[in-house]
């Protein structure tokens, strides 16, 4: 029997040798090809499950951070958004199953510590810690952002506040928003259901409407028409427009009316203050298609708003050929109706440009990035986007807008604390045709303090019910702008 037992031992030895060879074959020989298999998400998951730095506001509020999960969880880190929906459109979300959006996406390398600079500094601190994740600080102020949210309440719309000299975003809020914590939850099936649900909502809560959506600007567009006309010398402060309730542009029998069909006229300051329609329709026609389109282009209309977050929308006006054949549309385009569409962030940038002697700065939300030790990696330098008007015209526009705020369409509702004088322009775009349910966009743009401007704003409320549509831009957007600007000016 002993001989058989020895043979059995040998046989088993051979079997185990085969196991060992195969094990080596898999774990060493085929390692590279196995790791490279597209279905092998192990490395992706491990990258996902690395420490990740926080996102902060300018005043130091943490709006995204990674927290250790309960022991025994699938992943060691959970991305958390302590402020919930308040900064959702800025931070975006960071998930394995649905990717990353917004700052989480564009600043992924910094947050995960994968920029060349961080990797290099990481080499030296190999013995300290293997966490070289970085942080991102935004230009936004949490107080102003919160004020924007509170002021808007549960009304569809957007609020943008910009630093007029730099273009830094102080607040950017749109309602409805969403809670990124729900999407970043590791239960990706449930997160997927939420994502699908949010995506299907007509109000598009997943979109940062403040810069990814455009709205008909209504009378706020008169700022552009007026600046263009002043620049071209077609109009001056001394120009007087005749009192009229209607104006019949070329190529049509359908006259343009003033708001509520009222008779309206006077000098430029007066018609701007009262926001008459007919004078600006006339100005558009006087300027003509090519001048108007050229002015729109100078203001950056037609190009994606240059912004440091993904997928900004472009404002729209129209092209020359189109207007040559459709002069009535050029006329109503001059006061922000027809096919004219403006991005709220863009409108805020235009208001800021007027306050900044005609220089429109490139808006930005990401202030600076730091490495794990707190050393600043990169800081956004303010840059000019466009020179939209001469300083002289800008100065005239400031005066016009001051009158709107002090005794014009905005005077009812734009009231700043401590007697701060503001400059503004209101707008109410009628979206519904005759007989259709009321739909409108209520706007206000402006800046304050009027003489030493610090912040510019754009507020738009989307009127999808009678409550909003019954008001005008001033009565609806004014109180919102007041609260937000008070919060911004109180700061610092």
């Amino acid at each position, binding site marked *: 029997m002993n001989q058989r*037992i020895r043979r059995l031992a040998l046989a088993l030895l051979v079997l185990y040798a085969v196991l*060992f060879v195969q094990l*080596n074959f*898999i*774990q*060493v020989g085929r390692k590279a090809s*196995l790791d490279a298999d597209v279905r*092998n998400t*192990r490395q992706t998951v491990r990258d996902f499950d690395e420490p990740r730095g926080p996102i902060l506001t300018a005043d130091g509020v943490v709006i995204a951070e990674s927290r250790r999960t309960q022991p025994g969880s699938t992943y060691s880190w959970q991305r958390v958004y302590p402020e919930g929906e308040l900064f959702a459109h800025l931070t975006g979300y960071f998930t394995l199953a649905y990717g990353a959006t917004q700052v989480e996406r564009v600043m992924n390398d910094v947050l995960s510590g994968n920029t060349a600079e961080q990797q290099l500094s990481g080499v030296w601190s190999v013995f300290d810690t293997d966490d070289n994740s970085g942080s991102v600080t935004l230009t936004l102020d949490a107080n102003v952002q919160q004020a924007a949210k509170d002021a808007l309440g549960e009304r569809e719309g957007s609020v943008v506040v910009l630093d007029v000299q730099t273009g830094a975003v102080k607040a950017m809020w749109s309602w409805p928003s969403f809670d990124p914590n729900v999407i970043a939850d590791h239960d990706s099936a449930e997160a997927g259901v939420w994502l699908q649900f949010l995506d299907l909502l007509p109000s598009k809560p997943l979109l940062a409407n403040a810069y990814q959506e455009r709205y008909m600007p209504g009378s706020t567009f008169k700022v552009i028409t007026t600046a263009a006309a002043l620049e071209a010398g077609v109009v001056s402060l001394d120009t007087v427009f005749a009192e009229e309730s209607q104006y019949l542009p070329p190529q049509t029998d359908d006259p343009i009316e003033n708001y509520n069909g009222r008779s309206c006229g006077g000098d430029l300051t007066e018609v701007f203050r009262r926001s008459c329609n007919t004078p600006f329709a006339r100005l558009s026609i006087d300027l003509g298609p090519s001048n108007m389109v050229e002015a729109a282009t100078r203001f950056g209309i037609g190009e994606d708003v240059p912004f440091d977050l993904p997928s900004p929308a472009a404002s729209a006006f129209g092209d020359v050929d189109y207007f040559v054949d459709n002069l009535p549309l050029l006329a109503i385009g001059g006061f922000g109706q027809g096919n004219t569409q403006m991005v709220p962030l863009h409108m805020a940038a235009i208001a800021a440009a007027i306050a900044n002697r005609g220089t429109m700065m490139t808006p930005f939300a990401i202030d600076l990035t730091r490495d794990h030790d707190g050393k600043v990696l990169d800081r956004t330098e303010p840059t000019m986007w466009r020179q939209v008007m001469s300083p002289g015209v800008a100065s005239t526009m400031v005066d016009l807008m001051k009158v709107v705020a002090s005794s014009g369409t905005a005077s009812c509702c734009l009231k700043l604390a401590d007697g701060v004088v503001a400059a503004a322009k209101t707008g109410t775009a009628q979206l519904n045709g005759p007989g259709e349910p009321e739909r409108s966009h209520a706007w206000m743009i402006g800046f304050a303090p009027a003489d030493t401007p610090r912040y510019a704003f754009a507020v738009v409320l989307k009127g999808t019910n009678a409550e909003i549509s019954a008001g005008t831009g001033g009565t609806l957007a004014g109180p919102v702008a007041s609260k937000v600007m008070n919060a911004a000016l109180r700061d610092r």
Partner: protein
Amino acid sequence: MAGLVTAGAYTLASLGQNAVIPSRILPFLGLMLLLLVSAHVAVRWLASGADSTLLPVAALLNGLGYVMIARLSERLAGLQTTWTFIGIAVFIAVLVFVERINDLSRYTWHFFAAGAGLLLLPLIPGLGFSSGGARIWVNIGPINFQPGEFAKLALALFFAGYLAERGRLISTSTRRLGPFTIPESRDLLPLVAAWGFSVVIMVGQKDLGSSLLFFTLFVVMVWVATEKTSYLVIGLGLFVVACVVAYNLFDHVQTRVAVWLDPWSRYDGKGYQIAQAMFALGNGGVTGTGLGRGLPQRIPEAKNDFIFAAIGEEMGLLGATIVLLSFMVIIGAGLRIALRTQRPFEKLLATGLTTIIGVQAFIIIGGVIRVVPLTGITLPFVSYGGSSLVANYALLALLIRLSDVSARRLGEVPDTPMLSERWAARRARKRTDDVTTEVSDL
């Protein structure tokens, strides 16, 4: 030996510390160590002549598996501690009650009845139930267990007893057929019966792994007992026939083979588990991802049949090789026990028990790393599971007792009286004392 246990314990503890495992696990870990040390003390006391490598190596496997299970699920780690406790209790109980191993050969047919009964138990309606596709579970009141795990022990004992008695007889009464010596048809009967058993298990319970294990066990034991190669050839022939028939008859057998040959094209279906195991092993590489840093939870049944892949992922080729070497050490020690003893029953029993562990580990590791088609079976001492752990500790106790018995017989350790003998002697002495007292009273 104590040093080896300590080394195993140290490995265990350091592995536990490196892992991202919560502090709550430490009491469990401490309890595990205490259990293994008490098993060691029991061996020193009850079987001082036993092979000194078996228990520490089994403890190492148990410990590696435990760390992996703890890393996968805290709850299961707690349960595994309980199972280890019961396993060690059974281990000590076997050492206490089985003192003269030859006594067991008297109960050959009892073991047969027990083994056959246990094997067929899951087929009884109302008692047995299926889980994971195989009907190998039995539910009695609150307790679920896999009787097959215990049946293999009983059958090894039966084969050893039966063949020790009849083996020589079977091998002498042969006819010649060409170059081969063919056993009498009467003597072929047990072989055919064993084959029948395997088929019943395979068909009735869909448990390919156990079926293969039983059949291998039987063929190996008959071959060792009779020293006739023809049995090996016939056994192999029957095996091939069974394989071909099973392949053609059963879908799940075809699937297993297809997945073995190419898991990648069936990634979204039956091949997923194997493919994930491949990814896990590949990702582990030589040194592993480190405990708690891999994703073994992605492999279905990682705590159970696929625990080897989980070890290979997080502890790398090194950890996986340690597991392979551990089983080789157990095989070596087991067969050395078989060689050392002179009595056929003990020889065959040691061979059978070693074959069970060695072949079972091969079947499942080979299945996981695609050396053979996957057949679900636990990895002895490593996988999560009560029945498996308890049965394997009982098996280990028998091997240790065998080792101790032959050491005593060879005079390597003094053949001190066994516990029951000491107890009997003490009672006898006491009775004599009582009598003496009475006499002196008179």
